[in-house]
């Protein structure tokens, strides 16, 4: 018997009992649509997280953070001067497995434009080295990045995030902002560069379509767009080395300030005092980039050995890797996918039971038909195949209805979900759910099919 014909019989049978068939499909429709929607949601979270991660830098980044030393070493914890610029310099000179080192210090200060009507706002100012641009994956929109020379000379130049620049000088192209003067606190700085405007693809899409974001939410790109970046040395000499009131202190001030070097190394010669004071400054952040991911853990070992020396054996530092973060995100996505998948699987099983129920009712209604088919030469396996195909057809139609429903569902979810985690329809999710639905149809057809195939032709023919 040709398979095509079995399909024809199945379709005719389903069409003959439309309402009943649709009812039995319902479980499959719900199961398939919820499965696809769940997979789209988790895929959306994954992709949102991935773009977020990419903006913050990849797996190669390691943040060196301070922590309390272990209790064993508490007694001589004072020997360590904490995380300092010296650490950064040592890493740059000696850690061969590290390609970039970005020490940062921060202050908060008022930022305003000189001779313009733009905003006057308190912002976070970052003192940086040029490696910062590589590690934070910045792109320059106009002008230039800060250079090694800027850091060496402690020059008063600044690179602005796009949002900051456009708020300070509204209605002006970013190219013409280059060369203008910004006041940080009361100190004038020359704008040498403006960064690109960063946004996620979803934000770009929303912006292009003319819709404005309906509400404020935490935006991974916001931090980068609001950056105010000046040379590390400039920030130190301008705002940190003196007392808090003398923010306009000159960078070439030669008198050492004891307050900024609380744990000065006794081995340091007096002639190096000025350098020593900046080298001993506590960093707000120290981020390094591993040269080669294949040597990620050796690189961490290398870092640890170096820092053990500079911290005199006090374990008051720790490494935060993106690996941990990725793992955490991945495990939560996996958990979401698993629970969603489980719920969908349960409804698919329930759907399968519904189909089985209908198939059983259908064959007891068709005993005589089965007897006739057997009398003219249908083998038990022909009857079995017919029932199985019918079950699978019902579940397949249910699956297609479910796919259609899930497309609608995803559109609704898109409206209510945060933009960076917008659900993404995954075709392997669609495929997976169709396969699962077919499996449910197949399994639910087996018992009714066996029952039908085992009918005795004589009693089936006599059945009224």
């Amino acid at each position, binding site marked *: 018997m040709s398979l095509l014909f079995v399909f024809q019989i199945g379709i005719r049978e389903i069409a003959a009992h439309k309402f009943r068939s649709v009812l039995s499909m319902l479980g499959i429709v719900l199961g398939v649509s919820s499965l696809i929607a769940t997979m789209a949601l988790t895929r959306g979270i994954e992709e949102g997280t991935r773009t977020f991660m990419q903006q913050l830098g990849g797996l190669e980044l390691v943040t060196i953070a301070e922590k309390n030393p272990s209790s064993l070493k508490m007694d001589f914890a004072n020997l360590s001067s904490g995380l300092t610029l010296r650490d950064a310099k040592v890493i740059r000179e000696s850690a061969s497995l590290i390609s970039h080192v970005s020490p940062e210090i921060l202050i908060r200060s008022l930022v305003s434009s000189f001779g313009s009507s733009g905003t006057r706002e308190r912002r976070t100012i970052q003192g940086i080295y040029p490696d910062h641009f590589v590690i934070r994956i910045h792109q320059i929109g106009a002008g230039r990045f800060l250079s090694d020379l800027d850091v060496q000379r402690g020059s008063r130049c600044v690179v602005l995030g796009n949002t900051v620049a456009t708020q300070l000088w509204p209605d002006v192209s970013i190219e013409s902002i280059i060369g203008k003067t910004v006041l940080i606190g009361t100190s004038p700085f020359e704008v040498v560069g403006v960064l690109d405007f960063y946004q996620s693809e979803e934000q770009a899409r929303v912006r292009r379509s003319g819709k404005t974001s309906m509400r404020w939410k935490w935006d991974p790109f916001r931090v980068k767009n609001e950056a105010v970046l000046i040379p590390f040395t400039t920030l130190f000499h301008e705002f940190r080395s003196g007392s808090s009131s003398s923010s306009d202190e000159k960078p070439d001030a030669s008198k050492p300030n004891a307050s900024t070097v609380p744990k000065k190394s006794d081995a340091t010669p007096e002639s190096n005092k000025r350098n020593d004071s900046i080298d001993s400054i506590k960093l707000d952040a120290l981020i390094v980039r591993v040269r080669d991911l294949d040597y990620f853990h050796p690189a961490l070992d290398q870092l640890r050995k170096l820092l053990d020396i500079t911290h005199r054996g006090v374990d008051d530092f720790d490494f935060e890797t993106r690996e941990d973060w990725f793992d955490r995100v991945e495990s939560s996505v996996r958990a979401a996918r698993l629970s969603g998948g489980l719920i969908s699987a349960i409804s698919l099983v329930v759907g399968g039971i519904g189909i089985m129920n209908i198939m059983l009712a259908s064959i007891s209604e068709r005993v005589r038909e089965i007897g006739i088919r*057997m009398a*003219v*030469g249908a083998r038990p396996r022909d009857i079995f195949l017919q029932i199985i195909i019918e079950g699978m057809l019902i579940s397949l139609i249910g699956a297609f209805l479910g796919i259609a429903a899930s497309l609608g569902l995803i559109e609704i979810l898109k409206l209510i979900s945060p933009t960076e985690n917008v659900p993404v329809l995954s075709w392997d999710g669609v495929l997976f759910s169709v396969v699962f639905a077919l499996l449910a149809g197949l399994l639910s057809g087996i018992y009714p099919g066996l029952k039908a195939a085992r009918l005795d032709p*004589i009693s089936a023919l006599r059945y009224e």
Partner: protein
Amino acid sequence: MSLIHLESVSKIYRVGDQEIRALDQINLRIEEGEFVAIIGPSGSGKSTLMHLLGCLDTPSSGRMVICGNELTRATQDQLAHVRNQEIGFVFQAFNLLAKLDVISNIELPLIYGGVPSAQRRERARKVAFEVGLGDRLSNRPPQLSGGQCQRVAIARALVNNPRIIFADEPTGNLDSATGLAILGMFDELNASGKTIVLVTHDPAIAARSRRVIEIRDGHIVREYKP
């Protein structure tokens, strides 16, 4: 060897702990081209015999060979194959599929015989014309009269070009005039070389055959030529 060959065939049903010998040590040969009537009152075992001969069942004991197929201990698949290739059935209640039109009902055996679609239609149409239903191909059984339904059933029995036609009370649901017309068709079929086995309780119908086998309580009690 005969077309149908039964050698001390018994069929025993068990109902509870009671044993019912529906057929008891039956010996029977039917040759190609015969027109045989099996007659007997209800409960005599004639239907059971008919089911065995029609390959719908296997005997409890004895030997059964039909159209050269040793079916004494046949599987369902073997029985289905013989039914499909060698046997056509005509039932009292017609046993057509109400959901299918005339042509689809007629081609049903060809489907299970694995005949390709185009050839199937062609043969079904030809047989439908032979039984005089050429203008009714797309009707469905409920739209037909009893006589027309039985013609459809005969066409379905003939479509595989079987060697034996079994008819179980083929006129039981028809008025006498229509019944006569149907019986006339069996005469014609027999004349064209088909072996016909007709089961009835009516001696008048049995009298149209060439050989009558009377069965009672599971035994063949009499055999005669009308």
